[in-house]
C-alpha cells in the first residue's frame, strides 16, 4: 500500500456523489439513488438516499476496515435489543465507482434535528429530559460490555417522530478495557487529565457531564483550554463554570462524573431525575415564570400529548361561542 494522504480540507462533493447519482452494491446488487449529503466526518460521508421508495442513510468511505467494524457494532446492538438507540443497519456492500472501489453501508435514516439546535430552539429546560433518555441508552450499551466512546452533541439527534434522542456514529464504540477507538477532546476524560482513555462506564459518564456543560453553556470552547497544560485544564474550566448560574443545580452531578464517582449510568440517571424534579417543583411555585415557561417545565415531567382534532374543535367551538356572546351582549 502506498502513501495515504489525509487532506485537511474537505472536498465539496465527496466521492463525486451529487444528487441523482446511483450507487449499486457489488455483492448484494441493491441500488441507492443519492438525495443529498447529510454529514461529513473524519471517517467518511453520510448521504440521504432513496432505496426502492424508502429513505435510507448511506455511510460511504474509502477505508474498508473501519466501516466494516462500525457496521458490525450496529448489527450486534440491533440483535441484542428490539429497539437500538442507534440506526438500524441494513446492509454492508462495495461500490465499484469509476475512480476505484468504495465501501458503504446502508442504515435507517433518522429524521431529526441535531440536539444542540433543538435545545437552542426549545430551551434548556429540555436538557435534563434528554439526558435521562441518553443515560438509559448508555446503561443498555454498558450491559453489553461496551462504552459508546465518542459521545458528543453532534452525534445526538432528536427524532422528529417520537421526540426521542437517537445516537449516530458508532465508530467510537469500544469494548470495556480496551482503548477508546475515537474521541473528541472536549468530551475526552484524558484530555482534561481526569483519567485514562480506556473504555469503561465512567468514560461515557464523564462525556455525559461534558455534554451537560456544553449544552448549558454553548459559548464555552475547547480551544480556550487546548493551549493549557493538561493538568491545568480542569481547574480553568471549573473556574469558568463557577460563574455560570445555569449550572448551579447540576454541580453535584458534574463533580461526581468528573471524579468517577458513579459506577453505573443508572446512578447518574437517578441523580439527574431527582434534580430535575426539585427544579420543577421550584419553578412551578415561582410566580416569575411566564405561563409558557411553566407549561414547558411541566412538559418535561409529563410530555404533553400533541393537539389533535378534538382539541382544535374544542378551541374552535369556544371561539365561536365567545363570538356569539359578544354579538348578543356587546354594544
Amino acid at each position, binding site marked *: *500500500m*502506498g*502513501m*495515504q*494522504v*489525509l487532506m*485537511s480540507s474537505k472536498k465539496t462533493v465527496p466521492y463525486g456523489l451529487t444528487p441523482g447519482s446511483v450507487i449499486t452494491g457489488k*455483492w448484494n446488487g441493491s441500488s441507492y439513488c443519492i438525495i443529498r449529503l447529510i454529514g461529513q466526518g*473524519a471517517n467518511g460521508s453520510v448521504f440521504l438516499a432513496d432505496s426502492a421508495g424508502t429513505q435510507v442513510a448511506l455511510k460511504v468511505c474509502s477505508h*474498508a*476496515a*473501519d466501516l*466494516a*467494524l462500525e*457496521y*458490525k457494532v450496529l448489527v450486534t446492538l440491533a440483535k441484542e435489543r428490539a429497539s437500538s438507540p442507534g440506526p438500524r443497519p441494513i446492509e*454492508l*456492500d*462495495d461500490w465499484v465507482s469509476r475512480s476505484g*472501489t468504495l465501501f458503504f453501508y446502508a442504515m435507517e435514516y433518522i429524521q431529526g434535528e441535531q440536539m444542540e439546535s433543538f435545545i437552542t430552539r426549545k430551551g434548556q429546560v429540555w436538557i435534563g429530559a434528554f439526558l435521562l433518555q441518553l443515560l438509559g441508552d448508555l446503561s443498555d450499551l454498558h450491559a453489553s460490555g461496551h462504552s459508546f466512546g465518542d459521545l458528543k452533541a453532534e452525534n445526538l439527534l432528536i427524532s422528529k417522530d417520537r421526540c426521542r434522542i437517537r445516537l449516530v456514529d458508532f465508530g467510537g464504540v469500544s469494548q470495556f*478495557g*480496551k*482503548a*477508546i477507538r475515537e474521541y473528541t*477532546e472536549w468530551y475526552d476524560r*484524558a*484530555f482534561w487529565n481526569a483519567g*485514562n*482513555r*480506556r473504555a469503561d462506564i465512567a468514560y461515557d459518564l464523564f462525556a455525559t457531564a461534558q455534554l451537560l456543560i456544553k449544552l448549558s453553556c454553548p459559548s464555552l470552547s475547547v*480551544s480556550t483550554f*487546548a*493551549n493549557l*497544560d*493538561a493538568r491545568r485544564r480542569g481547574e480553568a474550566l471549573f473556574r469558568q463554570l463557577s460563574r455560570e448560574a445555569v449550572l448551579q443545580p447540576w454541580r453535584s452531578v458534574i463533580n461526581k462524573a468528573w471524579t468517577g464517582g458513579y459506577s453505573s449510568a443508572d446512578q447518574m440517571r437517578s441523580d439527574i431525575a431527582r434534580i430535575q424534579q426539585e427544579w420543577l417543583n421550584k419553578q412551578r411555585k415561582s410566580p416569575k415564570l411566564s405561563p409558557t415557561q411553566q407549561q414547558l417545565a411541566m412538559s418535561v415531567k409529563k410530555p404533553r400529548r400533541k393537539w389533535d382534532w378534538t382539541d382544535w374543535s374544542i378551541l374552535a367551538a369556544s371561539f365561536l361561542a365567545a363570538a356569539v356572546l359578544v354579538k348578543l351582549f356587546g354594544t
Partner: protein
Amino acid sequence: MMWGTTTIRQILVITDGQANVGSDPLEAASLAAANGITVNVVGIVSEGASGIDGGRQAHNIASAGGGMCRIVEMRELSGTVQMMTQKSMQMTIHQVVNRELKSIMGETEDSLPPMKRVQVAQMVDQIGEEATLQLVVAVDVSASMHSKLPRVREALRELEIGLEARSGTHEVAVIAFPGNNGQLASTVCEFSPSPDLTWLMNDLTAGGGTPTGPAIEAALRLHQERRRDLQAHIDQEEDGDASSYVV
C-alpha cells in the same frame, strides 16, 4: 498465528519546513521502509496558511517510507499525532494480513465478501490492540520551531495517554534535529514507555538548518540497535522457538 508478540516499528517526523542540510530524506525514508519501519510525517503550518514550504517533500518522504503525511495547524497537532500513529499501526497490520491472505487464498482483504471482511477487520483490530509499538519521534527543533515546542510536547504527552490505554506495550524514543554540539541529529530520550520530555522546553540552542535526512537515518539506527538488544536478550534466555512475529 503468533500475533501476541507482533512488534510494529515506526518513525514519526514532526517538522515545519524543507529539509536543507545533509543526506536526502527520501533515501533515508525508503531505507527505513526496506527495514520494515514505517515513516510518517506531520508538517505544521502557521494559522491560515495553505501549505508549508516543503509540503510536497513531506508527502514524498511519507510515501517513500510507506507511511502517511498530514499537514496541520498547531491546534490540530495533538489529535493528528495520536490518530496517525494508531492508523499507521493498523495499516501495517493490514499489509501483513493481506500478504498472508494473498499467499493462502490468492485474495486480498478488499476482495473478500463484506461479512468475511468484518471478521478480518476484527482480527486486525485485536492484533493492533495487543501489538508492541516501538516509535522514534524525530522533532525538528530548528529556529522556526522553537515557539511550537510546548505544543509538540503536549502532543507527545497526549500520544502517550493513547498508547497507555492499549493492552499492548510501547516504547518511545525522541530525536531532535539539528542536534546538540554541532551534530545533525541527537537522541534526547532513549526508548521508554513514558519518555521524559522536559528537554523540549529548555535551552535548545540549535541553529537554522533542517537536517531531516540525517534525522531519519539516526532514527533508523536507534531502531536497529534496539532490535539487536532485544534479540540478544531473547537469545540469552535461550528461547529456542522464538514465537515473535516481526512485522
